[in-house]
């Protein structure tokens, strides 16, 4: 009798155990967002590839194509309404310091409304990136930044794909090849190149293209990528991010950390504004105060840490609220130096209005930079001319930016000589190699970018809150396939948000990632996910809440 009862109980238990997997819900159809093929051919291609690999795991994947404006509205403003999306970070000189990326993209404080739109929440990670931010010793900080990358590699909050290669072309019959500067993580389209381009013949104007229009030429408004090419040439900064990715002295002739929250900077002597007035320490102080005045909201975050600025002779002393390792790159190499005699009345006037300094467009912008403003024709071109009084005066005569929305026409213009520097080519880069093969004067230069492409997982929605699930999805896709098929070889595989172009900060260990559909299936099985009727199900006991 007893043994019979025991047997019955055993049968009941095993039956229950047998039923358990059936009690788990199948995973709903997963949406994957991408921008249209016409606008972002590489993105569309890799999304199709990824969807195909994920389907092999037993997932229903629905690729949703939408323009950027629509995609960003959902991902950014409706944070609980999406599953996965392709996303892109572009490389900029200031991002040569990893702080902006490792902190703002993953720290909990930016999850609700900031750039941690995926909702990643890891207290250990938070503590680590806060610590690297305050660590002024580069070697100690390097170890922390590498540790942060290791945590990301283990957690896979995003599915990192590639660092693209920035590819630009110049005409070697016009510019001496040795005068072209290849900036690490940025490519040859950079301020250093424009200052050093040396004419090979009698053509002395740098004529380059952009497919984007110029919005504003304003030192207090971060208005767009193309606009930043212009502001970097017209306005100097105390420091500049050098071709090696590290900050170097520019309008400053020296700097010294007095203690962990005090830095003294000495202004270079003999600098002049484009209107002939001298650049003073007062101008420098004013520039940082204007950025923090509330009338230049885009620049506000870069000076928020400054609590006081004092000047004495040519010295400017910044007092900081917290120690900041990125201060040289993120603040001193970011804030444009602007003449107080021009901007003080503007800022005062704007304080009385409901607009701000971003709405103020100088008829002739005045900076102290290596190029001076000449003219701006709406949606057609911007002309700058070399500033012969600058401490690093350019070798070219003029810098002429042509707005060319038609990509094929831009390449045609390069071949015909209408432009001599192809600075923006959103099309298939292998076309550029073909053009260079046909004309030996056209030199193509590709550089691994600081920026990266990835697929973001929404941690607010199961199953993406499960690190094992994210790891499996990430492991399902061989990045070499993405590099070859979607980027035509113009990219390197990536498993870290810190680009290998930033050799000092990059953690090579992250690159040792095994991929393959079988491996991914094994990872899912180990984490308790089951396949039934070819459909992937949650681990036992987990129910689908989002149908």
């Amino acid at each position, binding site marked *: 009798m007893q043994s019979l009862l025991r047997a019955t109980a055993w049968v009941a238990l095993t039956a229950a155990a047998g039923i358990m997997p059936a009690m788990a819900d199948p995973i709903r159809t997963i949406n994957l967002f991408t921008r249209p093929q016409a606008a972002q051919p590489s993105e569309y291609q890799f999304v199709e590839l990824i969807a195909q690999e994920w389907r092999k795991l037993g997932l229903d994947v629905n690729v949703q194509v*939408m*323009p*950027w*404006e*629509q995609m*960003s*509205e959902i991902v*950014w*403003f409706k944070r609980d309404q999406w599953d996965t999306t392709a996303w892109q*970070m572009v490389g900029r000189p200031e991002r040569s310091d990893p702080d*902006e*990326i490792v902190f*703002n*993209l993953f720290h909990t404080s930016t999850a*609700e*409304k*900031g*750039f941690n739109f995926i909702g990643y929440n890891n207290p250990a990670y938070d503590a680590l990136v806060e610590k690297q931010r305050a660590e002024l010793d580069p070697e100690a900080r390097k170890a922390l930044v590498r540790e942060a990358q290791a945590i990301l590699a283990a957690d896979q909050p995003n599915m990192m794909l590639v660092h693209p290669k920035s590819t630009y072309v110049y005409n070697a019959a016009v510019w001496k090849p040795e005068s072209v500067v290849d900036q690490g993580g940025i490519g040859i389209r950079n301020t250093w190149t424009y200052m050093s381009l040396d004419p090979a013949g009698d053509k002395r*104007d740098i*004529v380059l293209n952009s497919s984007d*229009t110029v*919005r*504003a030429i304003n030192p207090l*408004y*971060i*208005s*767009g990528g193309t606009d930043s090419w212009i502001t970097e040439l017209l306005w100097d900064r105390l420091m500049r991010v050098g071709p090696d990715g590290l900050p170097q002295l520019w309008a400053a002739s020296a700097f010294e950390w007095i203690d962990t929250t005090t830095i003294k900077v000495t202004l270079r002597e003999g600098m002049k504004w484009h209107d002939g007035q001298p650049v003073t320490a007062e101008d420098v102080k004013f520039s940082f105060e204007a950025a923090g005045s509330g009338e230049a*909201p*885009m620049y*506000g*975050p*870069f000076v928020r840490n400054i609590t006081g600025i004092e000047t004495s002779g040519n010295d400017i002393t910044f007092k900081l609220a917290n120690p900041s390792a990125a201060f040289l790159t993120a603040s001193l190499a970011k804030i444009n130096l602007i003449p107080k005699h021009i901007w003080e009345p503007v800022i005062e006037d704007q304080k009385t209005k*409901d*607009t*701000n300094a*971003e*709405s103020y*467009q100088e008829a002739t912008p005045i900076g102290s930079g290596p190029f001076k403003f000449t*003219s701006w*024709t*709406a*949606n*057609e*071109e911007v*002309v700058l001319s070399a500033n012969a009084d600058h401490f690093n005066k350019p070798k070219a005569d*003029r810098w*002429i930016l*042509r*707005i*060319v*929305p*038609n990509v*094929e*026409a831009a390449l*045609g*213009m390069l*071949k*015909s000589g*209408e*432009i001599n520097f192809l600075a923006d080519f959103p099309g298939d880069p292998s076309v550029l190699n073909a053009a260079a093969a046909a004309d030996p004067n056209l030199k193509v230069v590709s550089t691994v970018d600081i920026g990266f492409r990835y697929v973001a997982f929404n941690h607010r929605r199961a199953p993406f809150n499960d690190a094992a699930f994210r790891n499996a999805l990430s492991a399902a896709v061989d990045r070499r396939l993405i590099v070859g098929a979607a980027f035509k070889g113009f990219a390197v595989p990536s498993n870290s948000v810190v680009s290998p172009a930033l050799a000092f900060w990059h953690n090579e260990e992250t690159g040792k990632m095994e991929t393959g559909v079988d491996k991914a299936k094994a990872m899912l099985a180990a984490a308790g996910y089951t396949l039934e009727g070819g459909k992937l199900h949650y681990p036992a006991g987990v129910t689908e809440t989002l149908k």
Partner: protein
Amino acid sequence: MKAFSAIGARVIQTLFVLWAVVTILFFLFRLMPGSPLAAYIDPNFTPEQQDALMARFGLDKPLWQQYFIYLGNLLQGDLGESFFYRTSVADRIFALLPNTLILTFSSLILAYGIGVLAGAYLAWKRGGAVEQIAIPLVLTTRAMPEFWLGMILLAVFSFSLGWFPAGGTRPPGADYPTLWSLYTSADFWRHMTLPVLTLAIYAQGLPLLLMRSNMLDVMKEDFVTMARIKGLSSYSVVIRHAARNALLPVMTSFAIAVGYQIQGNVVVETVFSWPGLGRELVRAVSASDYPLAQGAFLMIAVVVIAMNLVADLLYAVLDPRVTRE
């Protein structure tokens, strides 16, 4: 007195149309998916900045309130400030509108000049070998997409032969202090040739076919037969008698064509990097730059409405019968 009230009615009607356009545009753009803040998304984009931008753009108020503020500003001649450029919408539009108008009218005048003459000629040569070749050819040009035709012209005349520049209104860095000095320069006309050709080749089909069919109708009329009987020369019959009468509907179609042509400009301005309003319009719409998109569409609506008015008035001059009641 009667004429006065007719003009008054016409003005009220025009104002009503404009109000309807403004209202539809206002709600249309706000119903589209996409946020004007999308352009600013960046790791340094803070929640405070987002709120400040919404307030700055006036998007924190209820929709009806935004609508009345917009209408009120419009009545004072204020088109607002572009979200994207942060500067006056009116300044932006008036900087670009002349480039679009000169392209539109040059191409239309060319298209109508060729179209009307060729249409009259084809009607005269009805049933001949010329017609066998010309009509399919005209239909082909009508069927060619403008962006495709533009790219072909670029590939042939700019990239292969090097006869014309590939884009813009002037050579790099060329200094033309005023619009007038630019428009009267040889540089400008060289730059304008390919875009004008593209638009004209596409646009000539309508006046040509219209003129031809009108001519065929008119040629059957008694007064044409009468003219022939009088022994007038073919030239006199075709041009002085028939063509003048067949021209009337073509004139009306010109006014309507202005509207269509501005639409075609959107494509051609992109292909030839032409700094016009059409390109700006596309950008403004895709970036949810409501004030600029509304302003640009409104300006195009004004041009089209004005052209219709001109066509009506011109019609009265060309054919006095329409003014009699």
